């Protein structure tokens, strides 16, 4: 299947982008937005996006097939990992989810269409409307597609013309998603541009930064700081830094033969996107004192990871990523030979998965690619104490605790600074309404126009 050259990312690799090409693309996007997007209703956009989402879930959808066929070579993820990850994303694109997101972030589903007053606003003689940026630029890092696809969806919802700048070698899935939108509605596709170049190309980026009303960026703290300082003062900036996640398993849930299913959930979180995402766990803290020792849980987790490898293999790694795993394994192997405080489970003959059990509860940053630490702790409080070194950088904690303890567990984690707590097994499946790093993803994109006339009955609702 040969895709038409709709986007800059479709151009052959040898094509050189210049600032005048980028400048031209910005003008076209803005013009198309005025003609095709600015006047669209939220409902019609929701309908279009939901249809695109449904298409992607259809096994015979040509772009999905293309993504799964060429994806392993283009992204480094196996076909099954891609399928699982893409499904979990596209399942979220439903009218109900969009409705919930609009109400959550904007208070009302028609906030982007017209001036609206909620009851409380009406009482105060006020109303308001939310407006998206007319030209939105995304600086996307890494080849985990979901954050980028999510940004594109939200940008369309707020009627922005969008330029998605991908890091080199990572535009494959955003590009296919853009094609799926173009295929469904060429006019919507005409308000999107996808390009890729190695970050730091100041000539190209300067053009984008001059034109943008709002810039979103994902990446390291250094990348974010660099982008931010190159933006004109009038341009809004939304930065999402690298984060990490961990899991907590309470002793009660491992009793009564339930250990294997908890381990299976944990394995799903480790395997999803080969653990590359900021929602992927580095460490699983297991509470001691129950019927199953944390070490036994590590053994079960190893079995589950082995089973998963047979149906959803990890992607192929570069020599340096594999070497990082091999080097780390060898040191744990050495420690394990000297003390029962360390144990190691490894995929035989490959680096596909690794479980390290360490009695030392101190948080360890994993080298990822399905390399997970299991650590025993006496309580949730002890786990948090051990994770103090990463306290401000946590994105998600996946938990397996009995129902009676969920509320208290959540409150403890929230107060400690965790912006998202979810059931183990769902760490990489945040809902559309997820507040990214604790901030409303849609709510942050818009600006507001307030209307105050003191005469409540004149306002539409």
């Amino acid at each position, binding site marked *: 299947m040969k895709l038409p050259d709709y986007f800059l990312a479709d151009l052959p690799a040898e094509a050189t982008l210049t600032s005048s090409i980028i400048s031209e693309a910005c003008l076209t996007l803005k013009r198309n937005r005025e003609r095709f997007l600015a006047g669209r209703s939220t409902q019609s956009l929701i309908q279009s996006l939901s249809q695109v989402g449904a298409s992607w879930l259809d096994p015979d959808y040509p772009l999905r097939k293309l993504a799964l066929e060429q994806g392993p070579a283009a992204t*480094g993820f196996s076909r099954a990992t891609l399928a699982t990850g893409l499904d979990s994303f596209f399942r979220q694109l439903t009218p109900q989810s969009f409705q919930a997101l609009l109400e959550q972030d904007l208070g009302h589903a028609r906030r982007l269409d017209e001036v609206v007053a909620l009851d409380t606003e009406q009482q105060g003689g006020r109303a308001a409307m939310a407006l998206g940026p007319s030209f939105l630029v995304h600086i996307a*890092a*890494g*080849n*985990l597609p979901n*954050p980028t696809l999510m940004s594109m969806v939200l940008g369309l919802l707020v009627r922005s013309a969008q330029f998605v700048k991908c890091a080199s070698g990572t535009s494959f899935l955003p590009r296919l998603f853009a094609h799926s939108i173009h295929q469904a509605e060429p006019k919507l596709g005409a308000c999107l541009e996808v390009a890729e170049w190695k970050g730091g190309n100041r000539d190209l980026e300067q053009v984008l930064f001059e034109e943008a009303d709002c810039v979103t960026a*994902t*990446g390291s703290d250094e990348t974010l700081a660099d982008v931010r300082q190159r933006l004109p003062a009038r341009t809004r900036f939304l930065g*999402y830094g*690298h*984060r*990490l*996640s961990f899991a907590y398993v309470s002793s009660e849930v491992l009793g009564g033969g339930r250990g294997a299913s908890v381990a299976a959930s944990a394995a799903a979180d480790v395997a999803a*996107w*080969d*653990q*590359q*995402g*900021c929602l*992927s766990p*580095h460490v699983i803290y297991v509470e001691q004192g129950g019927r199953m020792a944390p070490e036994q849980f590590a053994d079960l987790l190893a079995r589950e990871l082995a089973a998963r490898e047979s149906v959803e293999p990890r992607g192929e*790694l*570069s*020599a*340096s*990523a*594999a*070497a*990082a*795993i*091999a*080097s780390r394994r*060898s*040191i744990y*192997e*050495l*420690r*394990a*030979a*000297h003390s029962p405080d360390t144990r190691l489970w490894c995929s035989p*003959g*490959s*680096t596909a998965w690794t479980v390290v059990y360490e009695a030392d509860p101190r948080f360890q*940053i994993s*080298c*990822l*690619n399905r390399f997970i630490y299991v650590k025993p702790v006496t309580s949730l409080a002890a786990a948090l104490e051990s994770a103090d070194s*990463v306290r401000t*950088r946590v994105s998600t904690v996946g938990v397996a605790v009995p129902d009676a303890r969920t509320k208290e567990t959540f409150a403890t984690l929230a107060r400690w600074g965790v912006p998202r707590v979810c059931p183990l097994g769902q760490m990489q499946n945040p809902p559309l309404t997820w507040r990214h790093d604790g901030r409303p993803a849609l709510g942050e994109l818009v600006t507001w126009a307030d209307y105050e006339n003191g005469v409540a009955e004149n306002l539409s609702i």
Partner: protein
Amino acid sequence: MSQRDPFFKLGEQVREFFSGDAAANPFEDLALEMFALQFHHNAPYRRYCEAVGRTPATVTDWRQVPAVPASGFKEFDFSCIPASRRSAVFCSSGTTRATASRHHHCAESLALYEASVRAGFERHFRPPFDCVLILTPPPSQAPHSSLVHMFETIGRAFSRRQAVWAGRMGPGGVWEVDARLAGQQLETAAAAGGAVLVLGTALTHLDLITALEAQGMHFKLPPGSLALETGGYKGRTRNPSKTEFYRQLSDCLGIPQTSIVGEYGMCELSSQAYDVRPAVPAFAPATEAGIGERRFTFPPWGRARIVSPETGEEVGDGRTGLVRVYDLANVYSVMAVQTEDLAVRRGDGFELLGRAAGAERRGCSLLAA
């Protein structure tokens, strides 16, 4: 130590390699003999071998000898030397801080180390040199640096005049170069007309070039002069590429790029690899850049295998893997050492790519720096 001491005996057999007489005891046999000896006298190594299920009772080929991770020297004393007999210790980065690797030595092991250094050097180069200029601090300031000890060994053995140390320990343990002293020495040497050997890390060479260039100083070192550099320049923010570094060094010292030699060694080993071959007069440029086709090789008493990080098996020619070194000169510690360095296998040598630890990022998760 008596003649009947098994380590002494093995050491003597290894020394036969140094003089080029290897026929009596092939590498393969000595390696297995050494493995058995080290297994019995090196408790942490024995535990490791038992844990991985390979002991002298089961290992029949030197390639099966378990290699300990180089970073394991940070946590365990991989030494056959009883604590009371240890007289020196070499540490990674030359410091004794808790996170450094430690390689213990006694008089005999140190003598072997020095003999290995001299023999390895002589295989590649044509000493003596009229003058040896060393850009690192002297041993009195860096007693735990195996590199400094190696430079001292070379300087003592191969310099007609007393070697000159132009480095010093700066604040915070940073190695500094006395560029004025080095410049004077180079000037004198250039005028005297005898071949000069300049020994340093990539960083100290870079510091020297920078300082000399700032004063507009360039030299034309006499024919036969050589610059030896080792180690990366980790920790610096702005670094030239290796090609650029070699060009600058060549310009500054007035020697061809082919007279610049890379050395690969570490405190956990007792032998060094050089990126020139004795057979090819090192001095013929292989490519226009002069460094593109270089490969590291160990002397005959050391062997590097480039192993796949996935399978642990040796990779094919031209493929990338981790460097695993079998060094017979490590008689008193562990012969087989697994490094974290990535390299491309080139015949019986390798092209070094660098340290593996910082795997490149693909996703948005936070990784260790």
